[in-house]
């Protein structure tokens, strides 16, 4: 268990800045998710933490000690790899026991501890098998067991659920969250799946182009995205973002205009004619008419069971609503979607949130 702190950490590969001046803290026992699209530097950040890459600038502290240039084995971490990386020539027992073996724990004690961990993950009947002889879900658990067996100070997860099928993934997600709570170990988790990040993390760090653009509690990130990138990245389907220009009383978009009435305070620094972005989450749209509504041809109606997705075409935009209930508009008819101004997100010309 340990506090982790990154201070102005950068990693350059030649001219590419994979990680660019990143600073953040993970409190003792906290679960932080690095979330971002592929190539945003999240995996590199994790590898810097593990000591598998060397930082170009900045410092990394683990439990108060400067670990910036420490070797992986000095950092006392447990890591779950995306491809699990189980050693194919060893049994599951030896795989899980490997971190103990390199620490010089005698065979008898090793077997005891591995059996204990394996039992808690209900996989003690697999210990004599080899990685190729067990299922994908079991391989994933083995990989987790190997990461926890030596009680490390920090857990690192590199997209550990991305190779599981949809059903198993949900199961493994709950399992990981429960395990992390139970062990209370400081954790850093990398994923490109926003639902996974929201579900697991105490704090989500959204990364874009090597920088952390927002670091906050999952619901804060969801409800108050700091810029259009975050707004668009979190949520499935993502937030509807509409380009508008501001002319005092109205937001004018292509094919629609909306009153600016309740937003005076948020708009005090905005000049006439500025291009703004207006965002509404799909679940805040409902079927119906009002001062605050968008109308257009229905584009697709996708019933999902508890809810349905209704998309309409407004000029060049596709606006998607998440409709609860079974009354759905006709396909290809004109459909109006209404919303409350309180649910509108406003982003300035630079893409940053206006509050």
């Amino acid at each position, binding site marked *: 268990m340990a506090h982790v702190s990154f201070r102005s950490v950068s990693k350059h590969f030649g001219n590419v800045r994979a990680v660019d001046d990143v600073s953040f803290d993970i409190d003792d026992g906290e679960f932080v998710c690095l979330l971002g699209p592929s190539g945003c530097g999240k995996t590199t950040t994790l590898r810097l933490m*593990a*000591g*598998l890459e060397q930082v170009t600038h900045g410092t990394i502290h683990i439990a108060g000690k400067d670990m910036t240039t420490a*070797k*992986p*084995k000095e950092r*006392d*971490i*447990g*890591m779950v*790899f*995306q*491809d*699990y*990386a*189980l*050693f*194919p*020539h060893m049994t599951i027992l030896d795989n899980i026991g*490997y*971190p103990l*073996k*390199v*620490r010089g724990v005698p065979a008898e004690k090793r077997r005891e501890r591995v059996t204990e961990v394996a039992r808690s993950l209900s996989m003690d009947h697999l210990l004599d098998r*080899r*990685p*190729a002889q067990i299922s*994908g879900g079991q*391989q*994933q658990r083995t990989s987790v067991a*190997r990461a926890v067996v*030596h009680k490390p100070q920090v857990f*690192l997860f590199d997209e550990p659920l991305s*190779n599981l099928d949809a059903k198993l993934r949900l199961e493994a997600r709950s399992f990981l969250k429960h395990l992390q709570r139970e062990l209370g170990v400081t954790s850093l988790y990398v994923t490109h799946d926003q639902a996974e990040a929201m579900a697991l993390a105490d704090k989500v760090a959204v990364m874009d182009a090597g920088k952390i653009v927002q670091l906050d509690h999952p619901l804060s990130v969801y409800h108050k995205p700091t810029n259009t990138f975050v707004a668009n990245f979190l949520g499935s389907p993502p937030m509807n973002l509409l380009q508008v220009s501001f002319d005092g009383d109205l937001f004018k978009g292509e094919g629609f205009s909306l009153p600016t009435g309740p937003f005076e305070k948020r708009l005090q620094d905005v000049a006439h004619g500025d291009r703004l972005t207006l965002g509404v989450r799909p679940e805040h749209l409902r079927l119906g008419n009002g001062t605050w509504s968008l109308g257009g041809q229905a584009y697709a109606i996708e019933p999902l069971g508890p809810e349905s997705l209704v998309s309409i075409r407004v000029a060049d935009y596709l606006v998607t609503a998440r409709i609860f209930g079974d009354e759905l508009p006709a396909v290809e008819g004109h459909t109006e979607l209404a919303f409350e101004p309180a649910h509108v997100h406003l982003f300035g010309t630079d893409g940053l949130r206006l509050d």
Partner: protein
Amino acid sequence: MKHVWYVLTRVGFYVLAAFFATMFAVPMIWLLTAPFSARANLGVQLPDPFTLQNFANVFANTFAVRALFQNSVIQSAGTMLVVVLVATLAAYALSRAPIRGRDALSYGLVLFSSIVTGTAAMVPLFLMIFNVGLIDTHTGVILVLTGGLLPAAIFIMRDFVDSIPRSYEESALVAGASPFGMFRDIALPIVRPGMMVVGIWTFVNVWGGFFVPFILLRSPEKMPASVAIYSFYTEGGTPIITLTTAYALLYTLPVLALYLFVNWKYGFRFFGGIKS
């Protein structure tokens, strides 16, 4: 019409295939029958009369027996050990270390290696080995053969190491292993099938090689089997078929046995463990 054409092409294909199969099979069948015949010639026929006398005569030739069961084994196994050890370490380094121009280096070495043990380099090689005092020694033969085979072995091995995901090694490092421990516990066992392939390939190459030991060795008691087989020729230079084939059959057995042993014990397969 279409049906007839189909049948004809199938028949044609099998006739052609049978012809080529026979071309390859006949010499092998001959090698299995001729040694057991008292009057073998260059034709394939059932041994008549059947005899084991040929083998008795071969074993009576102590020079040839020592060549096969001692000298060939020393030179082949020696070269195999050195090549596998050096090639594995070199291939691992070439694959994992970010060295500029490592691809050019690998290809260049393979290209030049055909020259090393070729006829063109024989005179300088002979002089070199002579100057370091290794003429007429197994060590000299092993060194020269190693030099010739190493580039290709490194090339094969590197391809093998390249195909192994780094996350195996990284997970060992994160688990707390030292670089050496990681290499010994993880990398080496995982590349073992590749080492087996390179080992057998080296062994077979040296086992069948004639030119290098023939030039570098002087004393008959150090010659390998490929040279010793000439002791079953008449003074006029024609082979005594019964004896050469009996010796040749014995000569092929160790290679066959080695292959079967490695395949049984370790297998040439590559095992999984990475989920992709």
